[in-house]
Protein backbone atom coordinates (compact mmCIF):
# COMPACT_ATOMS: atom_id res chain seq x y z
CA UNK A 1 0.00 0.00 0.00
CA UNK A 2 1.20 3.48 -0.80
CA UNK A 3 0.61 6.14 1.81
CA UNK A 4 -0.49 8.71 -0.76
CA UNK A 5 -3.38 6.45 -1.79
CA UNK A 6 -4.99 7.15 1.58
CA UNK A 7 -5.56 10.78 0.67
CA UNK A 8 -5.31 10.86 -3.12
CA UNK A 9 -8.36 13.17 -3.27
CA UNK A 10 -6.20 15.89 -1.65
CA UNK A 11 -3.87 15.95 -4.64
CA UNK A 12 -4.97 19.36 -5.93
CA UNK A 13 -4.66 20.95 -2.49
CA UNK A 14 -1.28 19.33 -1.85
CA UNK A 15 -0.01 20.60 -5.20
CA UNK A 16 -1.05 24.10 -4.21
CA UNK A 17 0.71 23.68 -0.89
CA UNK A 18 3.83 22.58 -2.73
CA UNK A 19 3.61 25.66 -4.93
CA UNK A 20 3.18 27.94 -1.92
CA UNK A 21 6.07 26.27 -0.12
CA UNK A 22 8.16 27.11 -3.13
CA UNK A 23 6.99 30.72 -3.25
CA UNK A 24 7.36 31.26 0.49
CA UNK A 25 11.04 30.43 0.52
CA UNK A 26 11.88 32.28 -2.67
CA UNK A 27 14.72 34.26 -1.10
CA UNK A 28 16.23 37.31 -2.81
CA UNK A 29 19.75 36.00 -2.30
CA UNK A 30 20.58 33.43 -5.00
CA UNK A 31 22.47 31.00 -2.75
CA UNK A 32 19.88 31.19 0.00
CA UNK A 33 17.16 30.63 -2.57
CA UNK A 34 18.96 27.66 -4.09
CA UNK A 35 19.73 26.13 -0.70
CA UNK A 36 16.08 26.44 0.36
CA UNK A 37 14.85 24.99 -2.93
CA UNK A 38 17.31 22.14 -2.56
CA UNK A 39 15.42 21.05 0.52
CA UNK A 40 12.08 21.30 -1.21
CA UNK A 41 13.36 19.24 -4.11
CA UNK A 42 14.48 16.53 -1.72
CA UNK A 43 10.74 16.12 -1.17
CA UNK A 44 9.23 14.28 1.73
CA UNK A 45 5.89 12.80 2.54
CA UNK A 46 4.39 16.21 3.46
CA UNK A 47 2.63 14.31 6.19
CA UNK A 48 2.13 17.39 8.37
CA UNK A 49 0.19 19.28 5.68
CA UNK A 50 -1.89 16.16 5.14
CA UNK A 51 -2.82 16.05 8.82
CA UNK A 52 -3.70 19.76 8.76
CA UNK A 53 -6.01 19.33 5.77
CA UNK A 54 -7.67 16.18 7.06
CA UNK A 55 -8.20 17.66 10.53
CA UNK A 56 -9.48 20.85 8.94
CA UNK A 57 -12.31 18.96 7.31
CA UNK A 58 -13.99 18.46 10.69
CA UNK A 59 -14.82 22.14 10.89
CA UNK A 60 -15.49 24.88 8.37
CA UNK A 61 -13.03 23.80 5.67
CA UNK A 62 -11.42 26.93 4.24
CA UNK A 63 -8.46 25.90 2.18
CA UNK A 64 -6.62 29.23 2.34
CA UNK A 65 -6.54 29.23 6.13
CA UNK A 66 -5.53 25.58 6.26
CA UNK A 67 -2.88 26.15 3.62
CA UNK A 68 -1.28 28.85 5.77
CA UNK A 69 -1.04 26.47 8.72
CA UNK A 70 0.11 23.54 6.59
CA UNK A 71 2.83 25.51 4.82
CA UNK A 72 4.11 26.97 8.10
CA UNK A 73 4.31 23.60 9.80
CA UNK A 74 6.11 22.01 6.90
CA UNK A 75 8.58 24.90 6.84
CA UNK A 76 9.27 24.49 10.55
CA UNK A 77 9.93 20.82 9.91
CA UNK A 78 12.22 21.63 6.99
CA UNK A 79 14.14 24.24 8.98
CA UNK A 80 14.81 21.69 11.69
CA UNK A 81 16.05 19.19 9.09
CA UNK A 82 18.67 21.62 7.69
CA UNK A 83 20.03 22.19 11.18
CA UNK A 84 19.83 18.47 12.04
CA UNK A 85 22.06 17.74 9.07
CA UNK A 86 24.69 20.07 10.53
CA UNK A 87 24.40 18.31 13.89
CA UNK A 88 24.59 14.83 12.36
CA UNK A 89 27.14 15.86 9.71
CA UNK A 90 24.84 14.27 7.15
CA UNK A 91 25.95 14.34 3.54
CA UNK A 92 22.73 13.06 1.96
CA UNK A 93 19.04 13.54 2.58
CA UNK A 94 16.71 11.39 0.49
CA UNK A 95 19.58 10.69 -1.84
CA UNK A 96 20.35 14.37 -2.47
CA UNK A 97 23.28 16.33 -1.02
CA UNK A 98 22.34 18.19 2.16
CA UNK A 99 22.64 21.98 2.27
CA UNK A 100 25.57 21.58 4.62
CA UNK A 101 27.29 19.18 2.20
CA UNK A 102 26.64 21.19 -0.96
CA UNK A 103 27.61 24.52 0.62
CA UNK A 104 28.75 24.60 4.24
CA UNK A 105 27.56 24.59 7.85
CA UNK A 106 27.20 28.34 7.98
CA UNK A 107 24.95 28.45 4.92
CA UNK A 108 22.90 25.63 6.44
CA UNK A 109 22.50 27.70 9.61
CA UNK A 110 21.38 30.79 7.70
CA UNK A 111 19.07 28.72 5.51
CA UNK A 112 17.44 27.06 8.52
CA UNK A 113 17.03 30.38 10.33
CA UNK A 114 15.63 31.97 7.19
CA UNK A 115 13.10 29.19 6.62
CA UNK A 116 12.05 29.17 10.27
CA UNK A 117 11.57 32.94 10.23
CA UNK A 118 9.60 32.73 6.97
CA UNK A 119 7.41 30.12 8.54
CA UNK A 120 6.49 32.28 11.52
CA UNK A 121 6.13 35.39 9.40
CA UNK A 122 3.76 33.51 7.11
CA UNK A 123 1.79 32.02 9.99
CA UNK A 124 1.07 35.44 11.46
CA UNK A 125 -1.60 35.69 8.73
CA UNK A 126 -3.56 33.50 11.13
CA UNK A 127 -4.61 35.91 13.83
CA UNK A 128 -5.50 33.25 16.34
CA UNK A 129 -3.41 33.66 19.51
CA UNK A 130 -4.24 30.15 20.71
CA UNK A 131 -2.80 28.64 17.54
CA UNK A 132 0.44 30.54 18.11
CA UNK A 133 0.57 29.50 21.75
CA UNK A 134 0.21 25.84 20.85
CA UNK A 135 2.78 26.00 18.09
CA UNK A 136 5.31 28.00 20.09
CA UNK A 137 5.07 25.51 22.97
CA UNK A 138 5.61 22.70 20.49
CA UNK A 139 8.69 24.39 19.05
CA UNK A 140 10.27 24.96 22.45
CA UNK A 141 9.48 21.35 23.43
CA UNK A 142 11.02 20.19 20.16
CA UNK A 143 14.23 22.03 21.00
CA UNK A 144 14.26 20.65 24.54
CA UNK A 145 13.71 17.19 23.05
CA UNK A 146 16.76 17.60 20.79
CA UNK A 147 18.84 18.75 23.74
CA UNK A 148 17.63 15.79 25.81
CA UNK A 149 18.55 13.44 23.01
CA UNK A 150 22.09 14.83 23.03
CA UNK A 151 22.26 14.64 26.79
CA UNK A 152 21.07 11.05 26.94
CA UNK A 153 23.35 9.77 24.19
CA UNK A 154 25.42 6.71 25.16
CA UNK A 155 23.62 6.54 28.50
CA UNK A 156 22.52 2.95 28.99
CA UNK A 157 21.07 3.60 32.43
CA UNK A 158 18.18 5.76 31.32
CA UNK A 159 14.59 4.53 31.49
CA UNK A 160 12.09 3.66 28.77
CA UNK A 161 10.08 6.58 30.13
CA UNK A 162 12.98 8.87 29.08
CA UNK A 163 12.86 7.37 25.62
CA UNK A 164 9.10 7.86 25.30
CA UNK A 165 9.33 11.46 26.50
CA UNK A 166 12.12 12.05 24.01
CA UNK A 167 10.22 10.71 20.99
CA UNK A 168 7.15 12.61 22.09
CA UNK A 169 9.12 15.83 21.81
CA UNK A 170 11.08 14.79 18.78
CA UNK A 171 8.21 13.58 16.59
CA UNK A 172 4.80 13.19 18.17
CA UNK A 173 4.23 16.78 19.25
CA UNK A 174 4.62 18.33 15.81
CA UNK A 175 2.24 15.77 14.28
CA UNK A 176 -0.17 16.28 17.15
CA UNK A 177 0.01 20.07 16.70
CA UNK A 178 -0.54 19.69 12.96
CA UNK A 179 -3.81 17.88 13.58
CA UNK A 180 -4.86 20.22 16.37
CA UNK A 181 -4.00 23.37 14.42
CA UNK A 182 -5.91 22.07 11.41
CA UNK A 183 -8.91 21.67 13.67
CA UNK A 184 -8.45 25.13 15.22
CA UNK A 185 -7.99 26.84 11.85
CA UNK A 186 -11.31 25.42 10.68
CA UNK A 187 -13.09 26.17 13.95
CA UNK A 188 -13.87 22.48 14.56
CA UNK A 189 -15.78 21.66 17.78
CA UNK A 190 -13.56 21.40 20.85
CA UNK A 191 -14.31 17.71 21.23
CA UNK A 192 -13.06 17.00 17.72
CA UNK A 193 -10.02 19.21 18.20
CA UNK A 194 -9.08 17.22 21.31
CA UNK A 195 -9.57 13.92 19.52
CA UNK A 196 -7.47 15.01 16.55
CA UNK A 197 -4.70 16.25 18.82
CA UNK A 198 -4.63 12.90 20.62
CA UNK A 199 -4.76 11.00 17.35
CA UNK A 200 -1.73 12.96 16.09
CA UNK A 201 0.16 12.31 19.27
CA UNK A 202 -0.44 8.54 19.24
CA UNK A 203 0.28 8.20 15.55
CA UNK A 204 3.46 10.23 16.01
CA UNK A 205 4.62 7.99 18.84
CA UNK A 206 3.92 4.90 16.79
CA UNK A 207 5.63 6.40 13.76
CA UNK A 208 8.83 7.13 15.66
CA UNK A 209 8.95 3.71 17.32
CA UNK A 210 8.66 2.09 13.92
CA UNK A 211 11.34 4.41 12.58
CA UNK A 212 13.57 3.22 15.39
CA UNK A 213 12.76 -0.43 14.64
CA UNK A 214 13.46 0.05 10.93
CA UNK A 215 16.89 1.37 11.79
CA UNK A 216 17.70 -2.22 12.80
CA UNK A 217 15.61 -4.25 10.40
CA UNK A 218 15.98 -2.40 7.09
CA UNK A 219 18.77 -3.09 4.67
CA UNK A 220 21.57 -0.59 4.14
CA UNK A 221 20.18 0.23 0.70
CA UNK A 222 16.71 0.96 2.11
CA UNK A 223 18.14 3.17 4.84
CA UNK A 224 20.82 4.80 2.72
CA UNK A 225 23.22 4.12 5.61
CA UNK A 226 24.32 1.01 7.53
CA UNK A 227 21.71 -0.52 9.85
CA UNK A 228 22.16 0.37 13.50
CA UNK A 229 23.03 3.98 12.72
CA UNK A 230 21.06 5.25 15.72
CA UNK A 231 22.95 3.00 18.09
CA UNK A 232 26.25 3.98 16.50
CA UNK A 233 25.38 7.60 17.28
CA UNK A 234 24.59 6.64 20.87
CA UNK A 235 20.81 6.93 20.56
CA UNK A 236 19.22 4.29 22.76
CA UNK A 237 15.91 3.31 21.17
CA UNK A 238 13.13 0.94 22.20
CA UNK A 239 14.54 -2.31 20.73
CA UNK A 240 17.81 -1.63 22.57
CA UNK A 241 15.98 -1.16 25.88
CA UNK A 242 14.38 -4.59 25.47
CA UNK A 243 17.61 -6.26 24.40
CA UNK A 244 19.35 -4.71 27.41
CA UNK A 245 17.18 -6.77 29.75
CA UNK A 246 19.84 -9.40 29.03
CA UNK A 247 22.63 -8.21 31.31
CA UNK A 248 25.39 -9.82 29.20
CA UNK A 249 24.18 -7.87 26.19
CA UNK A 250 24.04 -4.69 28.22
CA UNK A 251 27.57 -5.16 29.61
CA UNK A 252 29.02 -5.84 26.18
CA UNK A 253 27.18 -2.87 24.71
CA UNK A 254 28.39 -0.64 27.53
CA UNK A 255 31.98 -1.59 26.76
CA UNK A 256 31.57 -0.90 23.06
CA UNK A 257 29.74 2.38 23.51
CA UNK A 258 32.33 3.63 25.99
CA UNK A 259 34.39 4.82 23.01
CA UNK A 260 31.44 7.10 22.11
CA UNK A 261 32.08 9.00 18.85
CA UNK A 262 35.13 6.86 18.06
CA UNK A 263 33.26 3.56 17.73
CA UNK A 264 33.99 1.58 14.59
CA UNK A 265 30.68 0.98 12.74
CA UNK A 266 31.62 -2.69 12.37
CA UNK A 267 31.68 -3.06 16.17
CA UNK A 268 27.97 -2.25 16.28
CA UNK A 269 26.93 -4.95 13.79
CA UNK A 270 26.95 -7.92 16.25
CA UNK A 271 24.57 -5.94 18.48
CA UNK A 272 22.34 -5.19 15.52
CA UNK A 273 22.24 -8.87 14.62
CA UNK A 274 21.49 -9.84 18.20
CA UNK A 275 18.62 -7.37 18.43
CA UNK A 276 17.18 -8.61 15.13
CA UNK A 277 17.22 -12.22 16.34
CA UNK A 278 15.86 -11.47 19.81
CA UNK A 279 12.25 -10.68 20.63
CA UNK A 280 13.15 -6.99 21.09
CA UNK A 281 11.82 -6.08 17.66
CA UNK A 282 8.49 -7.84 18.22
CA UNK A 283 8.09 -6.23 21.61
CA UNK A 284 8.81 -2.81 20.17
CA UNK A 285 6.24 -3.46 17.42
CA UNK A 286 3.74 -4.38 20.11
CA UNK A 287 4.21 -1.00 21.80
CA UNK A 288 3.82 0.76 18.48
CA UNK A 289 0.62 -1.23 17.98
CA UNK A 290 -0.68 -0.08 21.35
CA UNK A 291 -0.20 3.53 20.35
CA UNK A 292 -1.93 2.87 17.05
CA UNK A 293 -4.91 1.36 18.83
CA UNK A 294 -5.12 4.45 20.99
CA UNK A 295 -5.04 6.52 17.80
CA UNK A 296 -7.98 4.56 16.40
CA UNK A 297 -9.84 5.00 19.69
CA UNK A 298 -9.28 8.75 19.58
CA UNK A 299 -10.93 8.84 16.16
CA UNK A 300 -14.12 7.21 17.43
CA UNK A 301 -15.61 10.52 18.49
CA UNK A 302 -15.37 11.91 14.95
CA UNK A 303 -18.18 11.63 12.40
CA UNK A 304 -17.75 8.99 9.70
CA UNK A 305 -16.34 10.96 6.83
CA UNK A 306 -13.82 10.40 4.09
CA UNK A 307 -11.25 12.30 6.15
CA UNK A 308 -11.77 10.00 9.14
CA UNK A 309 -11.31 7.02 6.84
CA UNK A 310 -8.06 8.55 5.57
CA UNK A 311 -6.79 9.13 9.11
CA UNK A 312 -7.49 5.49 9.92
CA UNK A 313 -5.74 4.30 6.77
CA UNK A 314 -2.70 6.50 7.51
CA UNK A 315 -2.44 4.96 10.97
CA UNK A 316 -2.67 1.47 9.42
CA UNK A 317 0.03 2.38 6.94
CA UNK A 318 2.29 3.59 9.72
CA UNK A 319 1.82 0.30 11.54
CA UNK A 320 2.83 -1.67 8.48
CA UNK A 321 5.40 0.55 6.86
CA UNK A 322 8.65 -0.97 5.82
CA UNK A 323 10.68 2.14 5.01
Amino acid at each position, binding site marked *: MKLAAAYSYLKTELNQIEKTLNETIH*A*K*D*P*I*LREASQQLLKAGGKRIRPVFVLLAGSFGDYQFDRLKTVAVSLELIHMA*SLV*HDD*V*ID*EAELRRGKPTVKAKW*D*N*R*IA*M*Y*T*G*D*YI*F*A*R*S*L*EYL*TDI*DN*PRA*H*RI*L*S*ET*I*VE*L*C*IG*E*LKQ*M*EEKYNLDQSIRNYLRRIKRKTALLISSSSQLGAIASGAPKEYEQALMQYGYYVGMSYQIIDDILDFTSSSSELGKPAGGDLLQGNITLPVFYAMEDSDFKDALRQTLAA*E*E*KIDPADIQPFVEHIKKSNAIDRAYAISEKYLNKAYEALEVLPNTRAKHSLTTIAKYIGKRKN
Partner: protein
Amino acid sequence: MDSISLELQLRRIKSAIEKQISHPYLERYIPKPFIDNDKLMILTSLMNTTDLSESKKDHYIITTMLVQVALDTHDLVTNQSMEKESVQHKVERQLTVLAGDYYSGLYYFLLSKLDDVDMIHVLASAIKEINELKMSAYYNKPDSIQDWMRVVKQIESLLIQRVAEHIQGTEINALSGEWLLMRRLTKEKQHFLKSGQSELIHVLTGHELSNNPSKQAIQLVEGTIQKCVQKMETAVNQLPFQFNQLTSYVHALIYDYSRKNTKVVEEG
Protein backbone atom coordinates in the same frame (compact mmCIF):
# COMPACT_ATOMS: atom_id res chain seq x y z
CA MET B 1 14.93 58.67 34.46
CA ASP B 2 18.30 59.22 36.14
CA SER B 3 21.40 57.27 35.26
CA ILE B 4 21.20 55.06 38.35
CA SER B 5 17.64 54.02 37.57
CA LEU B 6 18.61 53.26 33.99
CA GLU B 7 21.57 51.23 35.17
CA LEU B 8 19.31 49.25 37.50
CA GLN B 9 16.78 48.73 34.74
CA LEU B 10 19.48 47.44 32.40
CA ARG B 11 20.76 45.06 35.05
CA ARG B 12 17.28 43.79 35.81
CA ILE B 13 16.52 43.13 32.14
CA LYS B 14 19.87 41.52 31.51
CA SER B 15 19.31 39.19 34.39
CA ALA B 16 15.83 38.36 33.04
CA ILE B 17 17.38 37.49 29.65
CA GLU B 18 20.00 35.34 31.35
CA LYS B 19 17.27 33.55 33.23
CA GLN B 20 15.36 32.89 30.02
CA ILE B 21 18.32 31.41 28.20
CA SER B 22 19.70 29.51 31.13
CA HIS B 23 19.89 25.79 30.45
CA PRO B 24 22.03 23.56 32.69
CA TYR B 25 23.05 21.11 29.96
CA LEU B 26 24.06 23.86 27.55
CA GLU B 27 25.96 25.69 30.28
CA ARG B 28 27.99 22.57 30.95
CA TYR B 29 29.36 22.42 27.41
CA ILE B 30 29.22 25.78 25.68
CA PRO B 31 30.11 29.29 26.79
CA LYS B 32 27.34 31.51 28.10
CA PRO B 33 25.69 33.35 25.22
CA PHE B 34 26.88 36.84 24.50
CA ILE B 35 24.42 39.56 25.44
CA ASP B 36 25.19 42.71 23.50
CA ASN B 37 25.16 45.59 25.99
CA ASP B 38 25.05 48.28 23.31
CA LYS B 39 21.96 46.80 21.72
CA LEU B 40 20.39 46.33 25.14
CA MET B 41 21.09 49.98 25.95
CA ILE B 42 19.62 51.22 22.67
CA LEU B 43 16.50 49.09 22.98
CA THR B 44 15.92 50.03 26.60
CA SER B 45 16.31 53.74 25.88
CA LEU B 46 13.98 53.37 22.93
CA MET B 47 11.32 51.60 24.98
CA ASN B 48 11.58 54.18 27.76
CA THR B 49 10.40 56.88 25.36
CA THR B 50 7.12 55.06 24.72
CA ASP B 51 3.83 54.89 26.61
CA LEU B 52 3.89 51.10 26.66
CA SER B 53 3.27 49.39 30.00
CA GLU B 54 6.39 48.46 31.97
CA SER B 55 5.76 44.77 31.40
CA LYS B 56 5.30 45.22 27.66
CA LYS B 57 8.50 47.26 27.46
CA ASP B 58 10.34 44.45 29.24
CA HIS B 59 8.86 41.83 26.96
CA TYR B 60 9.79 43.73 23.83
CA ILE B 61 13.36 44.22 25.01
CA ILE B 62 13.74 40.63 26.19
CA THR B 63 12.27 39.03 23.07
CA THR B 64 14.29 41.25 20.72
CA MET B 65 17.44 40.44 22.66
CA LEU B 66 16.58 36.72 22.53
CA VAL B 67 16.44 36.99 18.76
CA GLN B 68 19.81 38.76 18.77
CA VAL B 69 21.31 36.10 21.05
CA ALA B 70 19.94 33.35 18.79
CA LEU B 71 21.42 34.98 15.67
CA ASP B 72 24.76 35.60 17.36
CA THR B 73 24.86 32.01 18.61
CA HIS B 74 24.36 30.57 15.14
CA ASP B 75 27.15 32.80 13.84
CA LEU B 76 29.46 30.78 16.09
CA VAL B 77 28.73 27.46 14.37
CA THR B 78 32.03 26.38 12.92
CA ASN B 79 32.34 25.54 9.29
CA GLN B 80 34.91 22.82 9.18
CA SER B 81 34.02 19.33 10.22
CA MET B 82 37.61 18.15 10.21
CA GLU B 83 38.16 14.42 10.27
CA LYS B 84 40.46 14.62 13.25
CA GLU B 85 38.24 17.03 15.09
CA SER B 86 38.00 16.36 18.80
CA VAL B 87 34.81 14.93 20.26
CA GLN B 88 34.50 17.98 22.47
CA HIS B 89 34.68 20.33 19.50
CA LYS B 90 32.03 18.32 17.71
CA VAL B 91 29.71 18.35 20.72
CA GLU B 92 30.22 22.09 21.11
CA ARG B 93 29.19 22.66 17.51
CA GLN B 94 26.14 20.43 17.83
CA LEU B 95 25.04 22.21 20.99
CA THR B 96 25.65 25.63 19.47
CA VAL B 97 23.20 24.76 16.69
CA LEU B 98 20.61 23.54 19.18
CA ALA B 99 21.15 26.47 21.55
CA GLY B 100 20.44 29.01 18.79
CA ASP B 101 17.28 27.13 17.82
CA TYR B 102 16.20 27.04 21.44
CA TYR B 103 16.68 30.78 22.01
CA SER B 104 14.85 31.44 18.78
CA GLY B 105 11.92 29.29 19.92
CA LEU B 106 11.82 31.18 23.20
CA TYR B 107 11.10 34.57 21.65
CA TYR B 108 8.15 33.09 19.80
CA PHE B 109 6.98 31.34 22.96
CA LEU B 110 7.09 34.53 25.06
CA LEU B 111 5.28 36.66 22.51
CA SER B 112 2.64 34.05 21.84
CA LYS B 113 1.92 33.97 25.57
CA LEU B 114 1.18 37.68 25.30
CA ASP B 115 -0.93 37.13 22.18
CA ASP B 116 1.33 39.64 20.43
CA VAL B 117 1.08 38.35 16.88
CA ASP B 118 2.16 41.71 15.41
CA MET B 119 5.47 41.67 17.24
CA ILE B 120 6.04 38.03 16.21
CA HIS B 121 5.64 39.23 12.64
CA VAL B 122 8.07 42.12 13.13
CA LEU B 123 10.80 39.95 14.63
CA ALA B 124 10.34 37.07 12.18
CA SER B 125 10.53 39.46 9.22
CA ALA B 126 13.68 41.02 10.63
CA ILE B 127 15.32 37.59 11.07
CA LYS B 128 14.44 36.76 7.48
CA GLU B 129 16.01 39.99 6.21
CA ILE B 130 19.11 39.61 8.37
CA ASN B 131 19.79 36.13 7.04
CA GLU B 132 19.45 37.41 3.49
CA LEU B 133 21.94 40.17 4.34
CA LYS B 134 24.39 37.76 5.94
CA MET B 135 24.39 35.70 2.77
CA SER B 136 25.17 38.73 0.67
CA ALA B 137 27.86 39.97 3.06
CA TYR B 138 29.73 36.69 3.41
CA TYR B 139 29.05 34.78 0.22
CA ASN B 140 28.22 37.21 -2.58
CA LYS B 141 30.82 39.79 -3.31
CA PRO B 142 29.24 43.27 -3.05
CA ASP B 143 30.02 45.76 -5.81
CA SER B 144 32.22 47.95 -3.64
CA ILE B 145 33.66 48.15 -0.14
CA GLN B 146 31.18 50.93 0.63
CA ASP B 147 28.32 48.66 -0.39
CA TRP B 148 29.73 45.91 1.73
CA MET B 149 30.07 48.20 4.78
CA ARG B 150 26.47 49.26 4.26
CA VAL B 151 25.37 45.62 4.36
CA VAL B 152 27.34 44.99 7.57
CA LYS B 153 25.74 48.06 9.11
CA GLN B 154 22.31 46.69 8.23
CA ILE B 155 23.13 43.27 9.68
CA GLU B 156 24.06 44.94 12.95
CA SER B 157 21.19 47.38 13.22
CA LEU B 158 18.23 46.03 11.27
CA LEU B 159 16.63 44.18 14.16
CA ILE B 160 16.51 47.29 16.34
CA GLN B 161 15.42 49.44 13.43
CA ARG B 162 12.46 47.18 12.66
CA VAL B 163 11.40 47.20 16.32
CA ALA B 164 11.78 50.99 16.36
CA GLU B 165 9.53 51.25 13.30
CA HIS B 166 6.97 49.03 15.01
CA ILE B 167 6.76 51.28 18.05
CA GLN B 168 7.15 54.46 16.00
CA GLY B 169 10.47 55.44 17.47
CA THR B 170 12.54 55.71 14.31
CA GLU B 171 14.42 58.82 15.53
CA ILE B 172 16.92 56.34 16.93
CA ASN B 173 17.67 54.59 13.64
CA ALA B 174 20.41 56.86 12.26
CA LEU B 175 22.33 56.81 15.52
CA SER B 176 21.99 53.08 16.10
CA GLY B 177 23.18 52.26 12.59
CA GLU B 178 26.41 54.23 12.97
CA TRP B 179 26.95 53.16 16.57
CA LEU B 180 26.52 49.46 15.93
CA LEU B 181 28.70 49.52 12.82
CA MET B 182 31.39 51.39 14.74
CA ARG B 183 31.24 48.82 17.55
CA ARG B 184 31.35 45.87 15.19
CA LEU B 185 34.32 47.24 13.26
CA THR B 186 36.16 48.10 16.47
CA LYS B 187 35.69 44.56 17.76
CA GLU B 188 36.77 43.01 14.46
CA LYS B 189 39.85 45.21 14.33
CA GLN B 190 40.84 44.35 17.90
CA HIS B 191 40.27 40.68 17.25
CA PHE B 192 42.35 40.79 14.10
CA LEU B 193 45.22 42.63 15.77
CA LYS B 194 45.17 40.14 18.62
CA SER B 195 44.68 36.86 16.81
CA GLY B 196 45.21 37.64 13.13
CA GLN B 197 41.67 36.47 12.48
CA SER B 198 38.54 38.36 11.57
CA GLU B 199 35.90 37.33 9.14
CA LEU B 200 35.20 40.92 8.12
CA ILE B 201 38.83 41.81 7.59
CA HIS B 202 39.29 38.60 5.68
CA VAL B 203 36.52 39.68 3.29
CA LEU B 204 38.12 43.11 2.95
CA THR B 205 41.57 41.74 2.19
CA GLY B 206 40.06 39.67 -0.58
CA HIS B 207 38.38 42.73 -2.02
CA GLU B 208 40.90 43.88 -4.60
CA LEU B 209 43.23 45.49 -2.10
CA SER B 210 46.71 45.70 -3.54
CA ASN B 211 50.04 45.46 -1.70
CA ASN B 212 49.87 44.69 2.02
CA PRO B 213 46.15 43.95 2.07
CA SER B 214 45.92 43.48 5.85
CA LYS B 215 47.37 46.93 6.55
CA GLN B 216 45.12 48.48 3.95
CA ALA B 217 42.08 46.67 5.35
CA ILE B 218 42.84 47.92 8.85
CA GLN B 219 43.21 51.45 7.51
CA LEU B 220 39.88 51.14 5.76
CA VAL B 221 38.25 49.89 8.94
CA GLU B 222 39.78 52.73 10.97
CA GLY B 223 38.63 55.27 8.41
CA THR B 224 35.10 53.88 8.52
CA ILE B 225 35.08 53.89 12.32
CA GLN B 226 36.07 57.53 12.29
CA LYS B 227 33.29 58.39 9.86
CA CYS B 228 30.81 56.48 12.01
CA VAL B 229 31.85 58.50 15.05
CA GLN B 230 31.36 61.76 13.15
CA LYS B 231 27.93 60.67 11.98
CA MET B 232 27.07 59.52 15.51
CA GLU B 233 27.87 62.99 16.77
CA THR B 234 25.44 64.55 14.30
CA ALA B 235 22.76 61.92 14.92
CA VAL B 236 22.94 62.11 18.71
CA ASN B 237 22.52 65.88 18.65
CA GLN B 238 19.33 65.46 16.66
CA LEU B 239 17.68 63.11 19.15
CA PRO B 240 14.59 64.40 20.97
CA PHE B 241 15.00 65.26 24.65
CA GLN B 242 13.33 61.99 25.80
CA PHE B 243 16.57 60.32 24.82
CA ASN B 244 18.66 62.47 27.19
CA GLN B 245 20.08 59.42 29.00
CA LEU B 246 21.16 57.87 25.76
CA THR B 247 22.53 61.19 24.54
CA SER B 248 24.81 61.51 27.58
CA TYR B 249 25.92 57.91 27.18
CA VAL B 250 26.80 58.38 23.51
CA HIS B 251 28.59 61.68 24.20
CA ALA B 252 30.71 59.84 26.74
CA LEU B 253 31.43 57.12 24.18
CA ILE B 254 32.48 59.67 21.56
CA TYR B 255 34.62 61.49 24.09
CA ASP B 256 36.27 58.24 25.07
CA TYR B 257 36.93 57.39 21.43
CA SER B 258 38.40 60.85 20.67
CA ARG B 259 40.59 60.75 23.78
CA LYS B 260 42.02 57.35 22.88
CA ASN B 261 42.54 58.37 19.29
CA THR B 262 44.27 61.61 20.16
CA LYS B 263 46.54 59.65 22.49
CA VAL B 264 47.42 57.23 19.69
CA VAL B 265 48.19 60.13 17.35
CA GLU B 266 50.30 61.90 20.02
CA GLU B 267 52.20 58.73 20.87
CA GLY B 268 52.23 57.82 17.17
